[in-house]
C-alpha cells in the first residue's frame, strides 16, 4: 500500500501545491513517494525529500519531460503505477492536464478536486462550482487530484532518499513552442494566492488603483473588483469577482469597501482566509470574514500596508 504524488514544480523550485497534496495523500494512511518529473530537477527533488512524511522521492529526469507535456508525463506515471495503490496530484494546470490521462490508461475513474479525505476510499469534492459537495467512494486503484485551497501545506521534517527512475520513450506527438507568463507583474486573478478586491466605496478609478496597488504589490496579490466597482467604471470587466465574473479561491482574500452582496460572495466564498475592510459594520461581508476591520478604507489600507512591512 503506497501512494505516489506527482510533484508540481517549474523546473527550479518545488511548488507549495505539492506540500498540500501531500497533506491529503498522508490522510490515505499509506507511505508516500513523490515523483519529480522534468529536466535538470535535482534541486526540486532535493526539496521534495525534506517534506515531512515522505518516504522516498523518485526522480525522472529527461529532456522529453522538460515542459511536462501530458503525453510523456502520463506515460511515465503509468509505467510506475504498478507499484502504487493511489496516484495523487495537486489540481493545478499540470495535474489536471495529466492525471485523467493516467486514469484512462489505467482504466480507473479519477476523483477530481478532492476537498476532504473522509476515509482512504471516500472523498468529498465540490460540484456545481462549489454549490454542492459530493461524497464519493472508489474501489481499487485510486487516481486523485487535490483541491489545493482545501488543504494546508505539510512542512519540512524528513530526509528521504532520491531514487532515479527510467523514463519511457516520448511518443513525440506534441511539441512545446513557448510560454508567456502573465505580462502583468501581478498574478492572474483566477490562480492567485492572494487577492485584493475593491468595491464602489473606492470612489473613482484613480483611487481604486492608488489605494489597492500598494497593498497588492506588498502581498504579490492579484486585484479584483466587485460588480458595482466594474459597473461604475473603476475597474476592468475581467477583474470582476462574483457570480457572473470570476470565481476565486485564494489563500487570502481581502475585500476593501465591498459590502458583500451575495453575488460577490458566490465568487470568493471558498477562499481560505477572508478579510473585510469596510466602514459599515453591518455590511454582509463581515458575516463571512475571518478578520474584519471597521473604518475608513482610505486610512486603514495605507496603515495595513505599513503594518505589513
Amino acid at each position, binding site marked *: 500500500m503506497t501512494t505516489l504524488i506527482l510533484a508540481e514544480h517549474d523546473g527550479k523550485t518545488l511548488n507549495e501545491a505539492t506540500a498540500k497534496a501531500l497533506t491529503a495523500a498522508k490522510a490515505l494512511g499509506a507511505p508516500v513517494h513523490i515523483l519529480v518529473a522534468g529536466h535538470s530537477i535535482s534541486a526540486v527533488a532535493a526539496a521534495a525529500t525534506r517534506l515531512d512524511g515522505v518516504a522516498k522521492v523518485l526522480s525522472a529526469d529527461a529532456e522529453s519531460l522538460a515542459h511536462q507535456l501530458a503525453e510523456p508525463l502520463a506515460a511515465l506515471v503509468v509505467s510506475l503505477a504498478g507499484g502504487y495503490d493511489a496516484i495523487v496530484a495537486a489540481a493545478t494546470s499540470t495535474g489536471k492536464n495529466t492525471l485523467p490521462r493516467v486514469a484512462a490508461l489505467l482504466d480507473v475513474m479519477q476523483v477530481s478536486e478532492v476537498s476532504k479525505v473522509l476515509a482512504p476510499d471516500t472523498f468529498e469534492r465540490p460540484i456545481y462550482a462549489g454549490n454542492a459537495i459530493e461524497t464519493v467512494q472508489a474501489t481499487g486503484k485510486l487516481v486523485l487530484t487535490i483541491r489545493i485551497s482545501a488543504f494546508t501545506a505539510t512542512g519540512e521534517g524528513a530526509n528521504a532518499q532520491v531514487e532515479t527512475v527510467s523514463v519511457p520513450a516520448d511518443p513525440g506527438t506534441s511539441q512545446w513552442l513557448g510560454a508567456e507568463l502573465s505580462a502583468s507583474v501581478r498574478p492572474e486573478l483566477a490562480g492567485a494566492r492572494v487577492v485584493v478586491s475593491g468595491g464602489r466605496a473606492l470612489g473613482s478609478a484613480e483611487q481604486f488603483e492608488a489605494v489597492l496597488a500598494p497593498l497588492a504589490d506588498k502581498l504579490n496579490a492579484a486585484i479584483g473588483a466587485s460588480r458595482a466597482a466594474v459597473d461604475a467604471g473603476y475597474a476592468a*470587466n475581467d477583474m470582476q469577482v462574483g457570480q457572473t465574473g470570476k470565481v476565486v479561491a485564494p489563500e487570502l482574500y481581502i475585500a476593501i469597501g465591498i459590502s458583500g452582496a*451575495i*453575488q460577490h460572495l*458566490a465568487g470568493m466564498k471558498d477562499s481560505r482566509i477572508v478579510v473585510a475592510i469596510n466602514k459599515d459594520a453591518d455590511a454582509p461581508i463581515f458575516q463571512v470574514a475571518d478578520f474584519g476591520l471597521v473604518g475608513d478604507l482610505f486610512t486603514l489600507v495605507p496603515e495595513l500596508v505599513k503594518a505589513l512591512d
Partner: protein
Amino acid sequence: MTEPREEMEFDVVIVGAGPAGLSAAIRLKQISPDLSVLIVEKGAEVGSHVISGAVIDPSGLDALVPDWRERETPIKTAVTDDRFLWLTEKSAFPLPGFIMPPLMSNHGNYIVSLANVCKWLATEAEALGVDIYPGFAGAELLIEDGKVVGVATGDMGIEKSGEPGPNFARGMALKGKYVLLAEGVRGSLTKRAIAEFGLAKESDFQKYGIGFKEIWQVTDANHKPGLVQHTLGWPLQDSVGGGSYIYHLEDNQVAIGFVVHLNYKNPYLSPFDEFQRLKTHPAIKGTFEGAKRLSYGARAISEGGYQSIPQLAFPGGALVGDAAGFVNLPRIKGSHNAVLSGIVTAEHVAAALAAGRSGDTLADLDAALRAGPIGKDLHKVRNVKPLLSRFGTLLGMGLAGFDMWCNTLLGASLFGTLRHGKPDYATLEPAAQHQPIDYPKRDGVLTFDRLSSVFISGTNHEENQPPHLHVADLALQKSSELDIFAGPSTRYCPAGVYEWVDGSYVINAQNCVHCKTCDIKDPNQNIDWVPPEGGGGPNYINM
C-alpha cells in the same frame, strides 16, 4: 439600427408564452390544424418568467383541454382548507366562512405552479404543431398603413455603447395576419399598441399591485398540503391596500406571497420590506420554522378590473390575457380568465382567417368577451377596488363584501359602477408629508435583503448590453424622484435595480426581475421598461 430584418410569415404571431398566449395557440390549432402559429417568449424558456400564487380556477382549462384531469399534468394539489385571517400586530382573527360571498370560495380550485402549468401547456401546444421560441423578446410592433402586421424580435449582441458587437444578430420581422399580444401585465408592446390605437380611450386607466412570492421547503410537521390561507391587515396600515397568501403545495413546498396595491401614497413605503416583515407575524412564522427558502420573485398585477379593460381588438390583432387586465381582485385570480380570453380570441381569429380576412379589427371580440364568462366574473366584483381605494382596507372590505353579496343575490349593485380615482403613478405624495419607515433588520433566516433574494431568482442579463430601463429625463429624476419623493424607486423595486449614490442615479439593470413596477409607479412616468436581450431576466423554477 436600420439594417433590414429577415422576414418570416405566419398566420398568427403571439407574443408571450404564458397562459393566455399558449391557450390562444392551442385553441387556434384545435380549430384549424393547418394554421401556422408562432409564439415568441422573452424568458429563457417557457415558464422562466411566469410567476403566480397560484390557486387556479380550472374553468379555463376545462374549456381548453376538457380531459386534462385524465392526463399527466402539474395540477396535483386540490384546495382542501381555505382560511381567511385579519391580522393585527400581535394577533390574528379568522373571518368565518359564511360572511364570504360564494364567489370567494376556493372549493374545486387547485394549488399549482403556474410556470409548470405553462410548461405543460407548451408541450400540448407543440404537439399540435405550434412553434414556440423562448429566448426571443418581442421588441417592436411592426405597423404598416395603420395596422399591426407583425412583431420584430430584439437585436442580439448590441454592446453597452449601443453599437453592434462581434456577435451582433439583427432581430427578425415575424409577420402575421393577426398578432396577439399576450405579454402579461404592463407589456411593453401592449403599452405601444394602447397608445397607438387609443385602446384605453373608453375605459378607466389600469390599476396595479406588486406581488411577491417565495417558495419554501418546510418541515413535515408544518406541511398541510391543500391549505390555502389569506390575510389582510398588518403589516400594512389601513390606508394601504394589500394582503398575503400562503399556499401549501406538494413535496413539502409552501408558497408565501404578498401583494401591495400600487396606489400607496407614502414614498417611504417599501413593499419588499412589508413582505419580509409579514413573515414574522406570530400566526405565520411557525410554518417556516426549520424551513429553507428556495426561490423568490416579484411581478406587477393588474387590479383595475372590469372598468379598466381597454378595447381588445386593434387593426391586425388583439390583446389577450393580463396584457388587458383580467384579474379578479377579491378572488386574487386571473389565470382562468387569461385562458378563457386566449380561447375566445382564438375563435374570433380562426373565424376571420377562415373567411379569408387578415389584418383587420376583430369587431365582435370585445362584446363577446364582456358578455362571456370573463365579463361576468369581473362585473360582479367591479366595485371592490374602488371601495378599497376610497375607504381603506377594513371599511372597504366590509362594503366590498356587501356589494359582492348584492351582485350575487340581486344581480345589481347599489353603487352602480364606481370609477377609479387616480392612476398609480399619481398617488405618491411628497416625502415631506411623510415620515420614513423604520423597517426591522433582516435576520437572514426568515427575512432577507433584496440582493440575496434576487440571487435565488436566477436573474441574469448579458452584461455588456445597454440598460433596458430607460430614464427619459435624468435631471427630472433628480429634481423630482429624489428631491421631492426621496427616491421611492429604491424601495418599490423588488430587485434593488435603482440606487441613489451621492446624487447620481445608478441603474443595476442586471438585477431586473421584469416586474414592471418602475414603469407603473415612477411619479413622473419617467421610466420606460423595454425588453432586454432575449433570454435575460429571472430563471424562475416552480413559480
